[in-house]
């Protein structure tokens, strides 16, 4: 592919819908499932004379996010009007932040799939209101204002990403952060997080950036990669043919069905948003007290948590990354690991058994019936060899359905591991006696048959026999 001659440069603007009960500038609900034009009032429909009043919660959520992204929080920020006509923008201007955003100059450390860590600069994060929703029906369009004025935080990155996968990893990491903070549910498909990617290419070694194209409307991580990859190859083809001047600064939409990007506007649209400070709102102040409080309450973020899990629990990179993806899962793991004092066993169990069960039953860890303490108890039984691994899995299944503790189940069913060499020897003798043919095979060098004896003995013990002991005694008796 010709694109190997060019360096890809990507900057991303992510719109994060802040998790509030009410809209940014009015007291209407932000509930999306409401019926058409239900969450509306004079303010969010731009009635004559209506005025905006700022939602207090938004400052907290925006500042919290800024701190997590290592930004400077501007204790005085300002709202401006971005003027443009569109039916889903009821005032014909969007209230946004322009000159003085609430957050500036931060970064986010992103772990790339190859294991390397890359620091992506965050230029700024600013508060703005969402637009409504238009649906197009051929010779008319219909407008729903439920979504107008819903609070968004637009997080603008530096043009620091160099490949489609880096771009996707950045957005993934960002999503993880906002979900950890609880400021956004991070749902790309439902639009509570939206990414616009600015993509350009340049021949390796060239200092100046190429002309950037903005890709909009990308609603999954897979599509972020695919859309950028398509756009990069489109631009590379133009370069190859000496037509790089045909790359124009424009907005292109990604069509997932055709895996293509296409230009949103056919004619050159001179945009002049005529930003000016919003006279209906005063300066937004973040008090020292709020800032201090937020700083003191700042939680450990996924990146740092993964590092700590590796360090203090000795987890592998892969396990650590898997476990920190969701905050609740990470917290669950940490409790199991601490209580059982078996971090590696805990990590194994959670990443295999528990995650499999969740996946099969389409459950979230938040709603899982087995508490971390109860799972820890089970793992202690296993690690102290009170039960063996196979029994442990059975007990786990029963814990989920019966909500009994591991100890109770093991006790009631008499599942405690049989460590008595005499009773195990009896089982072995029985097996040897009834399978002379296999004994002969084993002794003539066919060692594979060993597993057959192991299985038969375990079956006779109803699974309770200590497998290590069975193996040891079997070897002893068969070699006689």
């Amino acid at each position: 592919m010709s694109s190997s001659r060019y360096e890809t440069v990507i900057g991303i603007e992510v719109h994060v819908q802040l998790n509030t009960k009410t809209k940014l500038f009015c007291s209407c609900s932000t509930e999306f499932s409401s019926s058409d034009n239900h969450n509306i009032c004079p303010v969010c429909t731009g009635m004559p004379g209506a005025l905006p009043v700022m939602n207090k919660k938004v400052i907290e959520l925006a500042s919290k996010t800024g701190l997590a992204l290592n930004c400077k929080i501007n204790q005085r920020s300002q709202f401006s009007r971005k003027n443009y006509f569109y039916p889903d923008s009821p005032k014909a201007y969007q209230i946004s932040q322009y000159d003085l955003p609430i957050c500036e100059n931060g970064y986010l450390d992103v772990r790339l799939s190859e294991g390397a860590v890359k620091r992506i600069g965050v230029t700024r994060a600013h508060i703005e209101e969402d637009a409504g929703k238009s649906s197009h029906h051929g010779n008319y369009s219909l407008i729903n204002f439920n979504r107008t004025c819903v609070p968004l935080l637009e997080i603008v990155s530096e043009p620091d990403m160099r490949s489609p996968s880096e771009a996707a990893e950045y957005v993934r990491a960002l999503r993880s952060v906002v979900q950890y903070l609880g400021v956004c549910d991070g749902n790309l498909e439902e639009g509570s997080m939206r990414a616009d990617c600015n993509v350009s290419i340049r021949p390796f070694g060239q200092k100046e950036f190429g002309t950037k194209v903005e890709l909009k409307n990308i609603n999954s991580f897979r599509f972020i990669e695919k859309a950028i990859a398509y756009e990069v190859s489109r631009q590379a083809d133009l370069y190859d043919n000496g037509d790089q001047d045909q790359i124009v600064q424009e907005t292109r939409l990604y069509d997932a069905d055709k895996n293509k990007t296409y230009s949103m506007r056919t004619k050159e649209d001179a945009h002049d948003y005529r930003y000016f400070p919003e006279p209906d709102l005063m300066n937004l102040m973040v008090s020292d007290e709020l800032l201090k409080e937020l700083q003191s309450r700042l939680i450990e973020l996924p990146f740092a948590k993964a590092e700590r899990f590796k360090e203090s629990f000795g987890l592998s990179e892969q396990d650590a990354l898997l476990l920190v993806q969701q905050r609740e899962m990470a917290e669950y793991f940490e409790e199991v690991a601490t209580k059982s004092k078996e971090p590696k066993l805990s990590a194994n169990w959670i990443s295999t058994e528990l995650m499999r069960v969740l996946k099969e039953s389409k459950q979230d860890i938040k709603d899982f019936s087995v508490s971390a303490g109860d799972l820890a108890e089970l793992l202690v039984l296993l690690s102290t060899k009170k039960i063996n691994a196979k029994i442990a899995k059975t007990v786990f299944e029963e814990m989920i359905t019966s909500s009994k503790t591991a100890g109770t189940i093991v006790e009631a069913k008499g599942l405690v591991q049989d460590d008595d060499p005499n009773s195990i020897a009896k089982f072995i003798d029985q097996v040897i006696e009834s399978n002379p043919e296999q004994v002969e095979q084993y002794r003539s060098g066919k060692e594979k048959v060993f597993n057959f004896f192991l299985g038969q003995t375990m079956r006779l013990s109803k699974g309770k026999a200590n497998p290590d002991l069975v193996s040891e005694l079997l070897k002893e008796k068969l070699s006689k």
Partner: protein
Amino acid sequence: MVHQGTIMIDLKTVQHIANLAKLELSDEEASAFSDQLTDILGHFKKLEEVDTSSEECLYTPNPIAQRLREDEVVEFNERQKIIDNAPESSGQLIKVPPVVS
């Protein structure tokens, strides 16, 4: 910056501004605005005489801190009256002509 000398708001500028303001001007209107805006903006140029290099912009007379509202839902109960004002609607949705005809 505005260049020294007289300001001339020609017809092309008038049409550009009209387009931004979403106004469709007749030829007479455009030509009248060209003259009047040249006249008025020419007068406004007087502001250049005043040294404001040490001034911060004043956007509102009382630059106080933003008043804040608690995040509590208050339903507006007259939403039907908002929708009833629409020149055209379909169900509860507002109807507009297509982006491109």
